[in-house]
């Protein structure tokens, strides 16, 4: 349906349809963020002998995040006197917009997808890099030394880990012969790339955790060192935007992992009767759970170790993986 609309001449109807679709995607993502935060708190509570939210919205705290967001909305919007005002206000937007933009290319099932562009993967990687600028901008504009250190760490970290991240997916691209995410999923009909490209998968997971700024790579906002890092001066809804960015990226990164390595909506053999979208949701949830699990288990790395690990371990391994993939492709396909 969408393709027809795309090729038809612009009119009020398809503008409205596109707007409606965009809004529904936003709602879906916000719904995810709401419950991902709750899930994170619940799962971590379970792992840490706590209960987690249990007051607002029934015994499971189903409305806890809603209440939190409401609180953030009602908070006073403070901008430090010495801050660079325009940049300070722009930074959360620049961080958030790309996070939402990347979702456009992610296919959730055979039918549930919003765009089908040939260079989907490249688009994802390119756009997601922009968020760093928002983070760096926020760190700089706050005119706070902790925020500046956090921003600098963030920039250094993102650059170092973007490279192995891109390199690790090249193996997948080689085997598929396409940058289109839908074709990548279709290429995994028989076997998920997780089993064909195990090394790439490990590198991708590590690099994506670093990209997401989550434990053990949460240096930009290392609470015990930099207090809150780049968003130390932010409060209220601007701060909420940074948090939202983080969780939307969690959504995007878990989706892309599912698509690239876990076979997207392809079912497990003999269980084909379960619809694709449920398979996608299941695999996606496993990835999200894994990321939460990591956060509850691991300590934080140090900035210099993080750098040397990225450049001296992950990057050579990713290059090796490209070489192996090329050889495999040459021999078997």
């Amino acid at each position, binding site marked *: 349906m969408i393709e027809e609309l795309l090729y038809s001449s612009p009119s009020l109807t398809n503008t409205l349809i596109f707007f409606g679709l965009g809004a529904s995607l936003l709602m879906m993502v916000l719904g995810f963020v709401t419950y991902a935060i709750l899930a994170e708190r619940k799962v971590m509570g379970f792992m840490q002998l706590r209960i987690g939210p249990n007051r607002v919205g029934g015994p499971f705290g189903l409305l806890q995040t809603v209440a939190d967001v409401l609180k953030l909305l009602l908070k006073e919007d403070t901008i430090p006197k010495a801050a660079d005002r325009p940049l300070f206000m722009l930074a959360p937007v620049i961080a958030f917009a790309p996070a939402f933009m990347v979702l456009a290319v992610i296919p959730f099932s055979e039918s549930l997808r919003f765009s089908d562009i040939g260079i989907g993967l490249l688009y994802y990687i390119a756009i997601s890099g922009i968020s760093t600028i928002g983070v760096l901008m926020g760190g700089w504009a706050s005119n706070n030394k902790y925020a500046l250190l956090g921003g600098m760490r963030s920039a250094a970290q993102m650059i170092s880990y973007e490279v192995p991240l891109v390199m690790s997916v090249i193996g997948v691209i080689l085997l598929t012969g396409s940058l289109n995410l839908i074709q990548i999923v279709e290429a995994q009909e028989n076997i998920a790339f997780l089993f064909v490209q195990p090394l790439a998968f490990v590198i991708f997971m590590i690099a994506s955790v670093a990209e997401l700024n989550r434990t053990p790579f949460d240096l930009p906002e290392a609470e015990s060192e930099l207090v809150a890092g780049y968003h130390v001066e932010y409060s209220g809804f601007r701060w909420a935007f940074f948090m939202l960015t983080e969780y939307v990226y969690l959504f995007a990164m878990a989706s892309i992992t599912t698509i690239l390595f876990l076979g997207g909506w392809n079912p497990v053999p003999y269980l084909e009767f379960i619809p694709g979208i449920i398979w996608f949701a299941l695999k996606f949830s496993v990835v999200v759970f894994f990321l939460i699990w990591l956060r509850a288990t*691991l*300590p934080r790395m140090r900035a210099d170790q993080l750098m040397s690990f990225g450049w001296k371990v992950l990057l050579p391994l990713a290059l090796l993986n490209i070489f192996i993939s090329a050889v495999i492709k040459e021999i078997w396909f």
Partner: protein
Amino acid sequence: MIRTEEMLLNVGPQHPSTHGVFRIVLKIDGEIIKEATPVIGYLHRGTEKLAEDLQYTQIIPYTDRMDYLSAMTNNYILCHAVETMMDMEIPERAEYLRVLVMELGRIASHLVWFGTYLLDIGALSPFLYAFREREMIINLLNEISGARLTFNYMRVGGVKWDAPEGWIEKVEEFIPHMRKELAGYHDLVSGNEIFLNRVRGVGKYTKQEALSYSLSGANLRCTGVDWDLRKKEPYSIYDRFDFDVPVFEGGDAWSRYKCRMAEIEESLKIVEQAVEQFPKEGEIMAKVPRIIKPPAGETYVRIESPRGEIGCYIASQGKKEPYRLKFRRPSFYNLQILPKLLQGENIANLITILGGIDIVLGEVDG
């Protein structure tokens, strides 16, 4: 024209990883520390001066608030000093109760250190696990003394309260539980590659430096000096127990970690033996005059607290208040090496090093 300059970064007194109200002013180049100036005194309450106007029994609650993570040892050092001056004989049962609560307190203190240290390094869960076990100890101590943190349990000549019915059995049950959980901590943390990378070789100093900075406790034993007052100058009834003093050679944060974790095991051994030997009945207070007046003169005693060597100096003029009271507070002495260790380190290591020293601000500031 590119120009770089050093930045002055103020860490604390409200920073989350300074364990209270410690403040340190850093001169940093990027993330490398060029110069570190600690600023202390935010928690100063003048314990020593206040003590000059108080009777000895009245001073005991003040000692609780010095090292609030192991208040029992602080109680003991004051009582021990007065008892030494008055040459007092302490009943057997009281001595056992004192050793039991002190060693339980030592375990609790090390657990807090373990949890907060891991929290500093960025792992959230060990903190909550450690506090689960600490809570059990706190409950035990609460049952015997009526307070969770500031116990005010010991008195000159003995202890205030006898062990309630079934308390000894509860302590006995706690020992195997703690051993099991301790093995769990090692599984979760001690072998973790990220943790090892964070602590190995960080904050290293030599034996000579440790001695010349007058470090004590695990901060000294991590450099290979076998010095534990419970063994070297046994006080109370420590000569009746069979335990080892964990000594490590490295002198870095990793050795300090191993040292403290091993000390928990040794304390468990002591508690186990104390429970076994615990006298069925007996007095818990010696015959003490109603108003305690140590003879004129002065005395200095020292014992091993979880943080190191805690000493108490009393100058008495034979009155019911001390003429001068002075505590050698181990955290304060252990902290002195910090500026030297921080030279050329980065901010992440600042947290590791500061946490590794195991300070309690109540003790540093007095």
